[in-house]
């Protein structure tokens, strides 16, 4: 009997481990985008296990499947790297930057590129299986964006950093596009099943739960769409900002847990919506500071962070009541990853932070070399963005150049992935890091 029980335990353990590993092969860990990862997480930093160089920024978040790390590079490549050694297995070039996170399902790597194409590669060899042309990629843009001058000139948003990352289920792959559509393609052939048109750029990544896709658009609406038919079930209206277009649009990707959709918005709110009806359950206002991070949901708590106010928050998932509030050093676009009792988040000053899930206290941090060098005084001596020094003009390309300078300190936009106690993430310094 004892033998039988222990055999069952072993089998269950293996199944759970397999599920956990599978749950690391797409953006935010799973189709619901919970942002939680099984397995141990280091409460202390020991060493850099390896770092993998690419030709440009790494904004994409890494995913894991069968001991291989997959991610995109702004150098236009999609990479497969040995998770243990950091050695390249293959790379495939696209014709544009790849600031999207791949999904790896049934031996295929799915990812979109700024060249306006969506790709399916063989996971083992990198061979192209198919590619699909969307209506073209573009960044969110508006006249007088963020108060830049000339105010009647259309300006592309330098903070529209990510591309939509795909979710794969039931023989279909779903992703958003700069052409304003959410696409559903046959995952085996790349044939179009349906597309759903919104009013502006869709760079948020759709989450899937109970046969419904949830995603936001830069048109200020958040949508629920039937995954089989592509028909709208409901839509929710976020904030508008017709003057500066600063406080508008869903850039954050949602998490769906226990019938509730959690999403950040550029209107400075974190929203909790009823997944069945779209009715607002609660909102958490962040004093005009964007919520770009995609929330993580674990143990009845929502973990997220803000941009300008640089605050790290944990709130109660059912009520939105604050539990933890910690002042960070600078903007956070990276999405928190919860593993055990540690939450990992990237900071745009080139630092990865490990915080205690209960208290939010900083356990350890890791700063990339470029950030330490602080060329051009992008950072203050205590690691905050030196905004008054950089953003001294709102004329012509000055704010865009300043944003590029910020990126050059090795900002961590990439959302961390935790597998077997190793933390993987990309940096704008051009490297993918593995820490343990």
């Amino acid at each position, binding site marked *: 009997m004892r033998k039988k029980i222990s055999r069952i335990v072993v089998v269950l353990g293996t199944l759970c481990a397999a599920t956990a590993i599978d749950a690391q092969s797409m953006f935010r860990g799973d189709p619901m985008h919970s942002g939680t990862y099984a397995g141990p997480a280091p409460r202390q930093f020991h060493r850099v296990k390896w770092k993998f160089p690419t030709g440009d920024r790494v904004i994409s978040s890494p995913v894991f499947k069968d001991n291989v790390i997959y991610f995109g590079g702004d150098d236009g490549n999609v990479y497969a790297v040995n998770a243990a050694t950091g050695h390249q297995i293959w790379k495939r070039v696209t014709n544009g930057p790849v600031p999207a996170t791949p999904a790896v399902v049934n031996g295929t790597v799915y990812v979109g590129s700024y060249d306006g194409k969506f790709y399916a590669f063989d996971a083992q060899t990198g061979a192209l299986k198919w590619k699909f042309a969307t209506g073209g990629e573009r960044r969110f843009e508006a006249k*007088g964006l963020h*108060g*830049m*001058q000339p*105010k009647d000139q259309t300006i592309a948003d330098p903070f529209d950093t990510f591309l939509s990352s795909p979710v794969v289920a039931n023989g279909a792959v779903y992703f958003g596009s700069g052409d304003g559509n959410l696409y559903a393609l046959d995952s085996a052939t790349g044939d179009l099943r349906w597309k759903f048109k919104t009013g502006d750029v869709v760079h948020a990544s759709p989450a899937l739960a109970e046969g419904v896709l949830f995603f936001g658009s830069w048109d200020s609406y958040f949508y629920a769409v039937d995954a089989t038919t592509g028909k709208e079930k409901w839509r929710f209206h976020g*904030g*508008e*900002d017709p*003057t*500066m277009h600063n*406080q508008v649009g869903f850039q954050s990707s949602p998490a769906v847990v226990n019938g509730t959709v959690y999403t950040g918005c550029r209107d400075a709110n974190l929203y909790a919506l009823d997944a069945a009806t779209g009715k607002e359950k609660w909102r958490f206002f962040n*004093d005009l500071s964007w919520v770009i991070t995609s929330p993580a949901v674990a143990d009845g708590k929502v973990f997220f962070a803000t941009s300008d106010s640089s605050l790290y928050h944990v709130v109660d998932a059912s009520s939105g009541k604050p539990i933890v509030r910690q002042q960070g050093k600078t903007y956070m676009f990276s999405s928190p990853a919860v593993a055990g009792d540690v939450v990992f988040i990237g900071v745009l000053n080139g630092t990865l932070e490990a915080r205690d899930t209960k208290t939010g206290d900083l356990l350890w941090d890791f700063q990339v070399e470029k950030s330490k*060098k*602080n*060329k*051009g*005084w992008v950072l*203050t*001596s*205590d690691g*905050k963005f*030196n905004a*008054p*020094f950089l953003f*001294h*003009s*709102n004329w012509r390309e000055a704010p865009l150049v300043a944003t590029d300078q910020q990126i050059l300190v090795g900002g961590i936009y990439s959302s961390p992935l935790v597998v077997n106690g190793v933390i993987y993430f990309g940096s704008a310094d051009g490297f993918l890091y593995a820490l343990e």
Partner: protein
Amino acid sequence: MTAARALVRLVLILIVAVALTSRAEDVISGRWEGTAQIPDNELSVVIDLAQENGAWVGSIIIPGLGIKGVSLNDIRVQPPDVNFAVKGGPGIELKLRLDANNKLAGNLEQAGNRAPTTLQKTGPPQVEYPPRNTPVAKELEGEWKGDYEMLGNTRHVSIKFANHPDGAAADFVVVGRKHNVLPVDLVTQESDLVTVDSHEMGFSFEGRLRDGKLTGAIHQGAIETPLVLVRAK
């Protein structure tokens, strides 16, 4: 040595010391040009320093930072040391020393960062002075109120003008989600055109006083929103 001789010697020493200090101060007065060696971003720096009525005044130009003719604060000249801050902006301080080659060398400091800086005298000072507050018309004195819309929220504006011997002053308050008391740098009236500027906050009001109303716009960065102020009751 008699007491008289000692006194004469002391006076001579004092005269020489004062003369030397004056010479050093004369050397420091002028236009200084050079660079601050920020990593990957060498900045040109131009400083004008002069003495007026026994006090030091000065202004600074840093082309790479959009700083042109900005006043210097807390100027401390104790030869060979010359220290000062730049009014407003990103919080720059310069800590310099006159060296044997008559160059001002030291550091430009900002946000805890420090860059080696060397300046060379290139001519007489060309100090720029900030615009001064003008008096305002008697009918403008007192409190004016109005509302405008931003991001779907109403903002209540109050500006209270008062005349002083050195020009007018204004209390500038904007109430939205928060009660914001804006520090005012400049109040002017030219004919019927009235301006109130809070440079530090990037806020200003500009309007014309006509028919008992101040009709104009509030500027926040590049955003211009119409605003009509009426006298508070």
